């Protein structure tokens, strides 16, 4: 075969294979870790006058151990998830929310701990190999991005009793190079967070009776706990000498 013809055939074969491989290198999928426990709480009915309001006092977020600002979207999402349970009459968020002291309310503290595993080292090496192969290895070298969330919810009933719930979920986005978009990461985070909040909701529903208005009487005092310290009595010093005090009666006129 003429060398020029061979060169041309090689080039066109390479171009065709490249186009085919590129076209098949756009897929992506998300794998979710199985939930830690499968709960079926069943339907719970609660009368409207048995519902109490829920106030979220604080939402703390950490990412890979570092404190983060909690986004408004995340707060709204948590509120929405709790509202969907139908256990509480209304929900509000923020420390500025004031409630009458004689109301039955449930207060919540939420800790959202995110763990991101971007598999940066693997992505870097695979990227170099994909680039060196002129992208022909794109379909055979999927990339990964891991995300896990752990939500801890602490609910304090109006009488001071506290219950703690924990939901965790993890997922991995596997994608081929041309399938990567920032939306993919958002989708992964969305699925994991949703799974986490669902798990929390299931746990709360199991305790429906605990949060009904008739479950406990209201504490009439604003002060729920006081710290008492025994004062040490002032013992008289043996060496001290008593000081005589004379009191004279006022003269009658």
């Amino acid at each position, binding site marked *: 075969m003429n060398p020029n013809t061979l*060169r041309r055939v090689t080039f066109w074969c390479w171009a065709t294979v490249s186009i085919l491989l590129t076209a098949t290198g756009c897929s992506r999928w998300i794998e979710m870790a199985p939930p830690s426990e499968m709960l079926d709480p069943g339907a719970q009915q609660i009368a409207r006058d048995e519902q109490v309001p829920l106030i979220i006092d604080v939402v703390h977020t950490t990412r890979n151990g570092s404190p983060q600002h909690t986004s408004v979207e995340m707060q709204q999402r948590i509120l929405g998830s709790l509202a969907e349970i139908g256990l509480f009459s209304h929900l509000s968020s923020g420390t500025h929310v004031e409630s009458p002291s004689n109301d039955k309310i449930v207060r919540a503290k939420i800790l959202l701990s995110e763990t*991101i595993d*971007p598999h*940066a*080292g693997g*992505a*870097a090496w695979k*990227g*170099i190999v*994909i*680039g*060196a192969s*002129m*992208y022909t290895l794109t379909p055979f070298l999927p*990339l990964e*991005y891991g995300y896990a969330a752990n939500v801890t919810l602490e609910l304090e009933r109006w009488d001071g009793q506290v219950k703690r719930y924990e939901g965790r979920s993890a997922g991995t986005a596997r994608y081929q*190079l041309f399938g*990567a*978009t*920032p*939306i*993919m*990461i958002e989708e992964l985070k969305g699925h994991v967070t949703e799974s986490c909040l669902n798990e929390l909701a299931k746990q709360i529903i199991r305790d429906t009776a605990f949060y009904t208005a008739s479950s406990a009487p209201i504490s009439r005092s604003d002060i729920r706990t006081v710290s008492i310290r025994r004062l040490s009595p002032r013992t008289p010093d043996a060496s001290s000498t008593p000081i005589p005090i004379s009191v004279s009666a006022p003269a009658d006129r």
Partner: protein
Amino acid sequence: MTSPSLAARITLAALVSTFTIPCQAEEVRPRLTVGTQEISLSAGYLLPHRLTTEHTTKQSGPALMPSWAMVLTDPIGKSFYRGQLLLGAEIVYIQFQEPFLTHGVGFTPKIKYLFEGTGRLRPYIEFAGGPFYTDLGGRIPEESSRFNFILTAGGGLSWFFTSQFSFNVGYRFHHISNAGTRMPNLGLNSSLPFGGFSFYF
């Protein structure tokens, strides 16, 4: 007097559009996440390097480099080298004005490491390589074939005018040879200072 080349016109248009972008009062911090894509256009001028006494050709001319890249990783590292890896591809077009008016075009996958820098000013280094076709080959003593390969290594600075738009300046070293597929194969070496802009989405 020759009319300005296409590369020079595009460079001028890029510079004009860059400096006419309204400055934003708020702090610009580009947020590049995994999957963020970059398209860019750079232009420069190729300057020859004759590294041995056997090299005689003074190849020079404007170069135009449209490219695409994708952010592969979240920021990695904790020190001054903290940055993100991008993988992409580039088309290199060179109009050799010396020693003959000839052309060259190549396709090069490229790896780019974008340092975090100051947030707005982000240095980077890049490496690219791929096939390169030029009709200069066969007309000069250094290269006998038209089908060659081009290898590029260099670095630059990206100045983010907005969170999505940056102006880039940099320097690259170019090596063109045919990987020994035909003799002679001395190779052509060049410097390529360039400027351009990138759009991230």
